[in-house]
């Protein structure tokens, strides 16, 4: 999709570049299409699941990128919107309430509901910036989680810490993705089918964010990020534009949440703790805030790296010491924390920063300690 866009832009300028871009798009399309089969046969189904999750995280990271990367509003409770989408799916398509509504209804409903939650969070926090906003959004995320954890009494809505299980798999027009699908003699296993669905949706979100970035709204977001007062004096309605950032970012989270619930078949409040919000934020910041390819890279790296550590920590210790000395789970998070610190120390703008931000980082601040004052 990105290749497609690149080709679209290039067509206007240069014929040869256009052909190259189309070739790149086709090549990338083929790679993406056969990718699950390569992973599935080379590394097994557990890694294919991780790839599927990477797609979900890319969607989340792109949604958060609108809020943090474009509009510069530091949101640390983003996972709450993921939770809203996931729980809506779980409630409307599981034996918990005996409801089994169709997917094409629930996913958009999840997007809308998450969007409303986004506006609810955005409205009272419009005046806040920076660290303060971070803490309030963090508190909001925790409040949502605490309610999910406790809304099983006196009326059982969320089933408390046990969560909701037996959620309907994603099914479209009589075809369920939970079982292998046969198309024209080919059999597509379930995980592969989910991969294609998530890929299509992720590409859709990439497309939307790219178009947003270059739109009037996207430029308004960047203007607010750079200097809110100046943006206001240029005639931007900062209140509405900021609310829009929260709402749009949240609705992407809602979509990803619904998909997660259908894919996983089970939701519990544990999946939506602060660590997850931090994870998604790290994807955005580490990858390169505001830069869509960077954010995608961050999403992939931070989904795959902890898994590599998880799978590697045990065997490597066995090979080196002959026994497992250190808890692999703790070790993997330790390495993850170290990676965060090291990347930030050496590349404070992220691994793949956008050109605007790279320019900002070159500009020297005259103030020794306090930036932006």
């Amino acid at each position, binding site marked *: 999709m990105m290749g497609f866009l690149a080709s679209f832009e290039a067509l206007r300028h240069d014929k040869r570049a256009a052909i190259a871009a189309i070739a790149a798009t086709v090549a990338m399309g083929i790679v993406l299409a056969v990718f699950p089969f390569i992973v599935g046969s080379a590394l097994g189904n557990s890694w294919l699941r991780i790839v599927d999750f990477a797609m979900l995280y890319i969607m989340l990271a792109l949604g958060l990128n609108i809020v943090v990367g474009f509009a510069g509003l530091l949101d640390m409770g983003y996972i709450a919107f993921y939770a809203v989408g996931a729980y809506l799916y779980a409630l409307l398509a599981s034996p918990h309430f005996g409801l089994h509504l169709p997917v094409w209804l629930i996913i958009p409903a999840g997007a809308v509901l998450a969007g409303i939650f986004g506006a609810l969070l955005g409205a009272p926090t419009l005046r*806040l910036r920076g660290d303060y906003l971070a*803490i309030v959004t963090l*508190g*909001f995320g925790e409040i949502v989680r605490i309610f999910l954890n406790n809304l099983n009494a006196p009326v059982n809505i969320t089933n408390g810490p046990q969560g909701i299980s037996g959620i309907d798999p994603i099914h479209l027009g009589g075809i369920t993705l939970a079982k292998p699908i046969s198309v024209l003699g080919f059999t597509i296993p379930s995980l592969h089918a989910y991969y294609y669905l998530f890929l299509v949706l992720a590409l859709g979100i990439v497309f939307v964010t790219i178009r947003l970035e270059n739109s009037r709204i996207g430029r308004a977001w960047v203007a607010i990020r750079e200097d809110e007062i100046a943006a206001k004096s240029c005639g931007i309605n900062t209140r509405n534009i900021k609310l829009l950032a929260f709402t749009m970012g949240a609705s992407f989270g809602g979509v990803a949440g619904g998909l997660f619930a259908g894919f996983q078949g089970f939701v519990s409040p544990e999946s939506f703790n602060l660590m997850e919000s931090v994870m998604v934020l*790290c994807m955005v910041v580490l990858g390169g805030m505001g830069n869509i390819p960077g954010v995608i890279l961050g999403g992939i790296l931070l989904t795959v790296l902890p898994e590599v550590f998880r799978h590697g920590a045990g065997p490597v210790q066995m090979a080196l010491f002959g026994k497992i000395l250190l*808890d692999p789970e703790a070790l993997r*998070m330790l390495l993850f*924390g170290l990676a965060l610190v090291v990347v930030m*120390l050496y590349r404070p703008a992220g691994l793949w920063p956008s050109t605007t931000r790279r320019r900002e980082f070159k500009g020297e601040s005259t103030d*020794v300690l306090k930036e932006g004052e």
Partner: protein
Amino acid sequence: MDIFIQQIINGLVLGSIYALVALGYTMVYGIMGLINFAHGEVVMIGAMVALMVIKLLVNSGLPVFIIILIALAAAVAVCMAVGYSIERIAYRPLRRAPKLAPLITAIGVSIILQNLAMLVWGRNYHAFPPILPTSEHDIFGATITSLQVAIVLIAALMMTGLIILIHRTRLGRAMRATSENPPIAQLMGVNINQIISFTFVIGSALAAVAGLMVSANYSIAHYYMGFMLGLKAFTAAVLGGIGNIAGAVLGGILLGLIESLGAGYIGDLTGGFLGSHYQDIFAFFVLIGVLIFRPSGLIGEKVSERA
């Protein structure tokens, strides 16, 4: 009525601990304009180290008072070292970077400390050895243990000491100058790097004391205890007005009271719909409320529009 007084006492004890931790946040924020997200983990490290030392010495035959003192000294020393290293490694190189970068390193440090603690002390809860005297006193029909009295008194003492340090000494003057305007302070001969390191070290020492208090008060410690405590202490700092020392004390005590009274009465107030397991949400509602209606906190100075 005695339940009310009991909740007030519990709130005061909780509040003094919050206040001690909040001081660490507020001093760092006052000087660097940075939320030290890893501060809660420093409290946890303090609690764990103190607990480990107490467990080691519990059968040594030393008097209880001496054991506690040694444990406290060890915890304070370790926490000071941790605090100093955090600033040196994760924050100092990023002083000129935009605000998000130190925030991410702070989160990274927090994850590192938590998982280091998990590696060293395991993921189990550690019980506090029952070595403390458990005499109880009656006040207006409510009970207060001598441990609780000690917590409140020690916290008060430390806070007074800190306020004297900041307002009556040369070092304190340098700290206030740095917080006011770092470049100018530097021109006046203040060694900013030293002052910032010092701030982190003092904050961490207070955190170590608070850590011992928390684990003694709840008779328990584990690697994850720092996170929620840190968040609440930060809320307390914001409530009082971040950057303001007296504000942190006031905010801590108020938050402790709000929490224990809230948890005690929420069931009655909502007709049993919400129970005391919602205790943790009070801090966040208070935080959101304060930031919306009075972002500068109760006794804080006006925060500039462009934070």
